[in-house]
C-alpha cells in the first residue's frame, strides 16, 4: 500500500508546488531537464523495486509450480481463459491510450489528453469489472477462494492441497495487481483534472510521463500473469473455456 501512496508523492514531487510558481521548476533543481530526468529515473528505480516486490510472488509461484505441476494444471484449467484473454486485450488497449495521452501532451492537444486519459481509466475500470464481477464472483460460487470458502473436490484426489496452493497464488497475485490498478486509476483522475486545466504542455508533462511508466508496468505484470495463471500446461484436452 505504502509504496503506492509514495508513488503518488514521488510523482507529485516534480510538480508539487508548481501551481504557485509561474514556472514548473522546483527550487533545488538547476533546470527543467535535470528535473525531468530525476523524476523519470525515480520512477524507473521505483519500478525496479516493484519488479522485486512482485518477484517474491513469482519466485514462490515458480517453486510450487515446479513441485506440484499436476495440481497447478487442475487449478489453471478451472479459470476461464476467455476472461483472461479479454482482460489482456483491455489492458493493452488502456496502455495504448495512455501512451497516446502522453503524445497528445507532447503535441499540445489538451482535449485529446483529457479524452485519452478518461478512456484509459474506463478501460482500467473495465478490467477490474471483469475481474471482480465475473471471475472472482464465479470463483466464490464454485468454492475456490482459499481461506474463505475453498472446498476440496473428490476428483482432485491427492492434488487437492496443491490446487488450493494454486488458487492462493492466483488470488494474491491478481489482488495485488488489482490494487496497483486502483492506485493507477486514482493517479489518472488527478492527471485528468490537471490536463483539463491545461497544466501540461510540450515543455512540461513529467507527471504524465512517469505515471504512464507506472501504468505500463502494471500492464506488463498482467502480460506475465495471463500465461502463468491461465495457460498452465496448455488448455488442450479440456475443451474451450470451461
Amino acid at each position: 500500500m505504502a509504496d503506492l501512496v509514495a508513488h503518488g508523492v514521488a510523482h507529485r514531487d516534480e510538480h508539487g508546488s508548481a501551481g504557485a510558481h509561474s514556472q514548473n521548476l522546483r527550487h533545488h533543481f538547476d533546470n527543467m531537464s535535470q528535473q525531468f530526468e530525476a523524476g523519470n529515473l525515480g520512477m524507473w528505480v521505483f519500478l525496479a523495486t516493484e519488479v522485486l516486490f512482485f518477484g517474491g510472488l513469482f519466485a514462490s509461484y515458480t517453486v510450487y509450480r515446479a513441485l506440484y505441476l499436476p495440481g497447478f494444471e487442475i487449478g489453471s484449467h478451472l479459470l476461464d481463459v476467455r476472461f483472461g484473454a479479454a482482460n489482456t486485450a483491455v489492458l493493452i488497449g488502456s496502455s495504448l491510450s495512455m501512451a497516446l495521452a502522453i503524445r497528445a501532451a507532447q503535441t499540445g492537444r489538451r482535449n485529446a489528453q483529457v479524452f485519452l486519459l478518461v478512456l484509459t481509466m474506463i478501460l482500467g475500470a473495465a478490467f477490474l469489472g471483469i475481474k471482480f464481477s465475473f471471475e472472482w464472483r464465479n470463483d466464490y460460487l464454485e468454492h475456490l477462494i482459499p481461506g474463505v470458502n475453498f472446498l476440496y473436490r473428490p476428483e482432485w484426489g491427492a492434488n487437492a492441497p496443491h490446487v488450493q496452493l494454486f488458487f492462493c497464488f492466483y488470488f494474491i497475485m491478481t489482488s495485488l495487481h488489482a490494487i496497483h490498478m486502483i492506485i493507477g486509476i486514482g493517479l489518472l483522475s488527478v492527471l485528468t483534472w490537471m490536463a483539463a486545466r491545461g497544466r501540461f504542455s510540450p515543455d512540461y508533462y513529467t507527471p504524465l510521463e512517469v505515471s504512464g511508466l507506472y501504468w505500463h508496468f502494471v500492464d506488463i505484470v498482467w502480460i506475465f500473469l495471463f500465461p502463468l495463471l491461465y495457460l498452465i500446461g496448455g488448455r488442450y484436452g479440456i475443451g474451450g473455456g470451461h
Partner: protein
Amino acid sequence: MNAATCLWKSNLLAAFSLPIHPPTASTIGQGVDYLYFFLTGITLFFTVLIFSIIFYFMIKYHRRSDDEVPGFIGTSMMLEATWTLIPMAICAVIFIWASYLYFENSRPPTASMEMFVVGKQWMWHIQHPEGPREINELHVPVGVPVKLTMTSEDVIHDFSIPAFRIKKDVLPGRYSSIWFQATKTGIYHFYCAQYCGTDHARMIGWVYVMTPDDYAGWLSGGVRGESMVESGQRLFTQLGCITCHVADNSGRCPTLNGVFNHPVKLQDGRTVMADDAYLRNAIVNPNSMPLPGYAPVMPSFQGQMNEEQLLQLIAYIKSLGPEERKSAGK
C-alpha cells in the same frame, strides 16, 4: 540415571571450571576440529597482523604538528593484487577442505544402526529399532555408526550434538537424517538448536555412549516394548494394508517385498528411488505418484497415524526383503 547425570555434571564443573573446548567424541568431530583449528589460526594471524600494524602506524606516524601534511602515495596495483589473491587462495583452501568434509559427513555408512527421532514442542522422542523408547535420552553403543532418521510433529526443531559436531534441522512433514559414530564412552548433551517456542531451552537431553556390552545390557534391561518392525507389522495388518499389498504380488497393489532402496517406475515415466521420503509420501499421498498398471485405489493415510507410527510402518516395509515375508519382522 539421574544420579549419574549429576555426578557427571559436577565432575565436569570441577575438571573444567572454564572449558574452552567441547569434548570430541565422534569420528566426524576429529575432522571438523582440525578445520576449526586451522580457521582459528587464520583468524588469529590476521587479527594480530592488522592490530599490530595499526598500533605501529599509530605510534610511528603520530601527528607531530598541526599543519603537517603527508605526501601523496600512489596505489600499487601489485600490492592490491597481492592482498586480493592471497585471501582468495586461503578461502579456496578452506572451501575445498570444508566442503569435502561436509560431503563425507553427509553420507551415512551402509551398516548403520538406524534410530528414529521425533521432535515436538518441547521434547524429543527416540525409538530404537529393537523397541525401547526414550524421551530426551539417547543410548548408543560406541564404535558403531548410528543413523538418526528425524521428523517433527509441529514446528522446525534442530537436533544438535556438539560433542559429535553434528546438527540438522528437524522439519515437519519430511525426514531428515544425520549419522555419527561415537568414539568415546561418556555422557554428552544434545540440544534443540532451532528456536521452537516457549520451552525451546528445555528441549535438551543426554546421549549415553556405552560399550557394546553395556548397550546390550541396557537394551535387555529396560522394559522392552515391541520393536519398530513389530509395531509396523501390527499396523500393516490393523490398517488393512495387508489385504491389497500381498506378498506374492497377487493383490490389487504391488508387493512391497524388496521395494526399499530400489528404483520404482512411475506412470509418468519418471523413475524414483524408493527411499524413506518416497515411502512416506506413498503412504500419506498415494495418488500423487500413480504406478503403471495399478488403479489409484489406495486411500491417503494422512491423519490416520502419528509420525511415530508412520516411522514404524516404514521400518516394517524396509525390513521386507525380496524373499518370503515371514522371515522379516524378526
